[in-house]
């Protein structure tokens, strides 16, 4: 029964819908970029490059052939998880799409977005602690409970989990290094502490999976689970190291802005 659902698709049109959506997002971003190119301030080109890289990483994760590999092999699943939940979001957040939208959209719409960004609800949702719980909590639930095995046969759950990886990964990354204007941003120390907990929780989860062969009852060999857990450990580490570098680089930049205008005499 379960085996049939693995093999039935040769890629059909619906498989390509996520990729089409990515193309639409890319076109919108580029349109916004060109519309404000000649305005004062403009838009940094490196952000365009980062955003494009982020979309390409998501595109790779959502290719029908990778989807099929990920469905059968936990290593494939882990590659997808890393791209959707960690590397993709890192580059997308560096592309600052909401800030670009604020600049390019008509004033009324931009005001609405700013109001949302400054609202109490958004502050709570985008707080590093909330984002950590959604992001890491999701991973713990997926791999340590029967959820993973269920997702193999339930395609709705399967897509929901992919969406969650991306959304929670984006939220978490944004809570660390987002540039959009908000009413108040949690202190730098809080963000560093939450990143520390996140790194530790990720390292622990992957070694725990390696040691006790989680997800349990999955149709994967022990070797495959160990290989996937190792991939999760090392590549997850690298992405969080990159995130830490961006976070501290922004601290370094802000200190220079804070210091230079102060007269030294």
């Amino acid at each position: 029964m379960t085996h049939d659902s693995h093999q039935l698709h040769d890629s059909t049109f619906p498989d390509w819908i996520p990729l089409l959506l990515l193309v639409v997002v890319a076109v919108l971003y580029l349109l916004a970029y060109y519309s404000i190119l000649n305005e004062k301030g403009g838009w940094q080109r490196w952000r365009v490059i980062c955003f494009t890289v982020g979309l390409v990483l998501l595109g790779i994760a959502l290719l029908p052939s990778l989807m099929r590999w990920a469905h059968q092999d936990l290593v494939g699943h882990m590659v997808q998880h890393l791209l959707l939940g960690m590397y993709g979001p890192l580059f997308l957040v560096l592309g600052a799409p909401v800030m670009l939208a604020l600049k390019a959209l008509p004033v009324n719409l931009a005001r609405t977005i700013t109001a949302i960004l400054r609202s109490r609800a958004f502050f709570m949702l985008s707080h590093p602690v909330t984002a950590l719980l959604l992001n890491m909590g999701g991973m713990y639930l997926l791999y340590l409970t029967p959820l993973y095995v269920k997702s193999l046969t339930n395609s709705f759950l399967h897509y929901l989990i992919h969406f969650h990886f991306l959304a929670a990964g984006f939220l978490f990354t944004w809570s660390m290094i987002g540039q959009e204007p908000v009413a108040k941003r949690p202190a730098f120390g809080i963000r560093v502490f939450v990143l520390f907990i996140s790194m530790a929780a990720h390292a622990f989860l992957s070694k725990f999976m390696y040691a006790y062969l989680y997800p349990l009852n999955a149709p994967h060999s022990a070797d495959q689970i160990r290989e996937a857990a190792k991939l999760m450990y090392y590549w997850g580490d690298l992405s969080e190291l990159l995130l830490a570098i961006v976070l501290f680089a922004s601290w370094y930049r802000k200190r220079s802005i804070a210091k230079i205008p102060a007269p030294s005499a």
Partner: protein
Amino acid sequence: MNQQVAPHTKRRSMQAAALVGVGVMAAVDEIIFHQILAWHHFYDRSTTEVGLMTDGLLHAAELIAVVAGFFMLLDLRRQDALVTGRAWAWFFLGLGSFQLFDGIVDHKVLRLHQIRYVENLLPYDISWNAAGLLLLLIGLYLWRKAKLNEMTNTGI
């Protein structure tokens, strides 16, 4: 050069360099012993769950330490406030204390993994910890030298 070094820039120079030292030693351990020599194991069966958890916390602390220390050093240098002698001293103290900590707490107390999976582990343990001690001594020597230099500089 720095005739009147404020105490807090001395302290910050030492803190930043120690963080980098700890992180660099952890990276050396990971790259040489885990990846290149493959003496250490990713996980060995004797590791407990508490061991895994402390391993995760330590690992995260090392990563943050090296990044935080690096940017703190850059910031001090930009302000012309980096006390180089003290920074080198504490870089070595960071290296040494991580090596000793790893050798005693990680390998022996928590038993996360061993240096190498051989019959007679003792020579490995001794050289590991002796290397840590040597790095600590170099750090202490450099620290003393830095302090003496500062005294002669300001004494002129």
